[in-house]
């Protein structure tokens, strides 16, 4: 089973890197969906010997939220606000990939220093989670579109989630559900705000305000 787990971890990082390298927003969301699907399988893999109801719930929750609801909301937002779909990075794709690779290396290097107490199921969990978080940060910092920032945020969340499921099970289910719900609501509200901003722009088409806002939206 460990092979699957390791593969899952590495896939998640890989998808994060791909998101960083994608130049179209729609593509980014799609890859994010893939990443989330892989992630939602992780609880099941990790406790493959004895899958509990909690794991199933977590898995289902993740899949329904991150692979279905969130992308839906994002697509809705994109459609509603007829946003231009290219990513407009501050750092070019090539450089981003190089930086991303360096970040991954950094995450692994940092993980060397951290010894996880207890019994880790896999030794890839921590570095991969860290790498995903870092890549998510990178997406947020270097990509200027509003939606890309949301995606970056979601990648970070995925990283954290990977960390949580792979390393320990001290968190009560209720709390984990709360976390999931929070994330969803966050994205939902972000989308609403985006929508509102867009409406404001439509009252003032082609005004200087868009230029002033750094072409974020």
């Amino acid at each position, binding site marked *: 089973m460990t092979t699957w787990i390791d593969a899952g971890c590495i896939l998640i990082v890989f998808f994060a890197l791909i998101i960083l390298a994608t130049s179209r927003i729609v593509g980014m969301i799609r890859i994010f969906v893939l990443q989330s699907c892989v992630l939602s399988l992780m609880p099941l893999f990790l406790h493959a010997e004895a899958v509990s109801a909690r794991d199933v719930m977590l898995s289902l929750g993740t899949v329904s939220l991150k692979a279905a609801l969130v992308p839906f909301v994002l697509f809705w937002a994109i459609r509603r606000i007829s946003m231009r779909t290219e990513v407009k990075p501050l750092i070019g794709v090539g450089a981003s990939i190089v930086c991303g690779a360096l970040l991954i290396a950094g995450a692994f290097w940092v993980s060397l220093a*951290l*010894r*996880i*107490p*207890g019994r880790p199921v896999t030794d890839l969990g921590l570095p991969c989670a860290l790498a995903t*978080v870092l890549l998510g*940060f990178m997406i*947020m910092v270097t990509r200027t579109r*509003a939606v890309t*920032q949301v995606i970056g*945020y979601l990648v*970070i*969340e995925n990283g*954290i989630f990977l*960390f*949580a499921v792979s*390393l*320990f099970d*001290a*968190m*009560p289910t209720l*709390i984990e559900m*709360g*976390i999931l719900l*929070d994330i969803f*609501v*966050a994205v939902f*509200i*972000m989308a609403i*705000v*985006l929508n*509102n*901003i867009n409406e*404001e*722009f439509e009252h*003032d088409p082609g005004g200087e*305000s868009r230029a002033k*806002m750094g072409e974020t939206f």
Partner: protein
Amino acid sequence: MLSWLIFIPFLCALAALLPVRRIFRVWLLGATALLHASVVGAFWINRPAPEWNGYLVLDPLGLILLSIISFLFLSVAVFMIGYFQHEQRLNRTFIACLLLLLSTMTLVSVSYHMGLLWVAVETTTLFSAPLISFHRSRGSLEATWKYLLVCSVGIALALMGTFFLAIAANDVHTLFLPALLKQAPLLSVNWLKLSVIFLLVGYGCKMGLAPMHSWKPEAYGQATGMAVVLMAGGLTQCAFLALIRVSQICFQAGMSDFYASILIVTGVLSLIVPAVFILGEKNIKRCFSYSSIEHMGLLALGLGLGGLGLFGALFHMINNALVKVVMFLTAGSIAQKYGSSRVDDVRGLIRSYPLTGIFLLVALLAGTGMFPFATFHSELMIINAAVIAKHYWLAAAAVICLALMFIGVSRIALEMVYGQPTEPVLAKKENFYMNAAIAAAVALLLWFGFWLPEPLEKVLREAAALVGV
């Protein structure tokens, strides 16, 4: 009792979502706030028992925060009665979100589980976001966006910190605060350190400590005064409560110095950054928001210094909330009257609206720690703590920054209060409710400045003892 305190505002929020008349929602909010306040008042006499298997416990720290929150809502509710007499805007989302915020903030102050604490803090972030965009102007929406993004990232970091804490607590196997505290020496030191850093940065984002403060001027500058009061007085201090909880753990784990050094660095940064930024500022709300960052810095500093500083910080929590009421409700009332909160548009307040002018002066003086106001004492204690801890440069830097801060705020506030009055948008009439809400806070500030009541001091001492003095 505690769960009811959380649920009732929640239910009222649902009620507020119903299509009813505007004024009904205002009164609903008022009634809820009053109820909340009276229950919290009862808690001062008789502390409630833990609920939900120990998830909800009201300790003195929580009681302080809960009382602050309760007071803030009451003031805002009273203020709002006056505010919506002039305002034609729809208030459905606004008031619903306010009530949800009340509910979740109550949850923050009573949650005794680090995970639950995180969830509650995150929720407060979400429900406060729509408050910022109340005016629906481009600026306010943009500010909302920034607020959401920065705070969400911060909160994500705090989540990571919480997870690290959980790893550190691998042997303890729980995130319940009492258990963590009891078995703190068992925590793995390295992971705890990592967790503390992440928690500090994460909750620091929420609290608006520099350099995670960047959302503050934007959000406070754009949101309506009532919302800002709740954010600056309530939300940020909720995050501070989280930091205090971390401090409790660190103290028990024997890592006070480690945590203190980080807190002090952050605190000093939070003093310096706004002091530099404020000098070029022209907008009174943004100005006050820098002042708010500075107050957060003071809180962090006090917590980091411990001892007297801790007591000062706890006292400052209360004062800070009161000052924020005065500051931002006044700013809000000015913004409503003049349609702007920029210094160029507002002059001669003391002639047009004498009471509002006086309140602005009070906001200036109390906000910068002048004597008859309670902030004077709490700031004094924090600086004193720095001296006692032999951090002389720290004390010097703190006072220089406070001085710069004062220059920055007074430049604007005084310009607005005095001089030849400009023509306001609204008729020349002061509103009783609006002024009453502010006056209550002013009175409390004066009261605590002249006379620190016995029960309050007792609770403050108990709270300080919890963090370990």
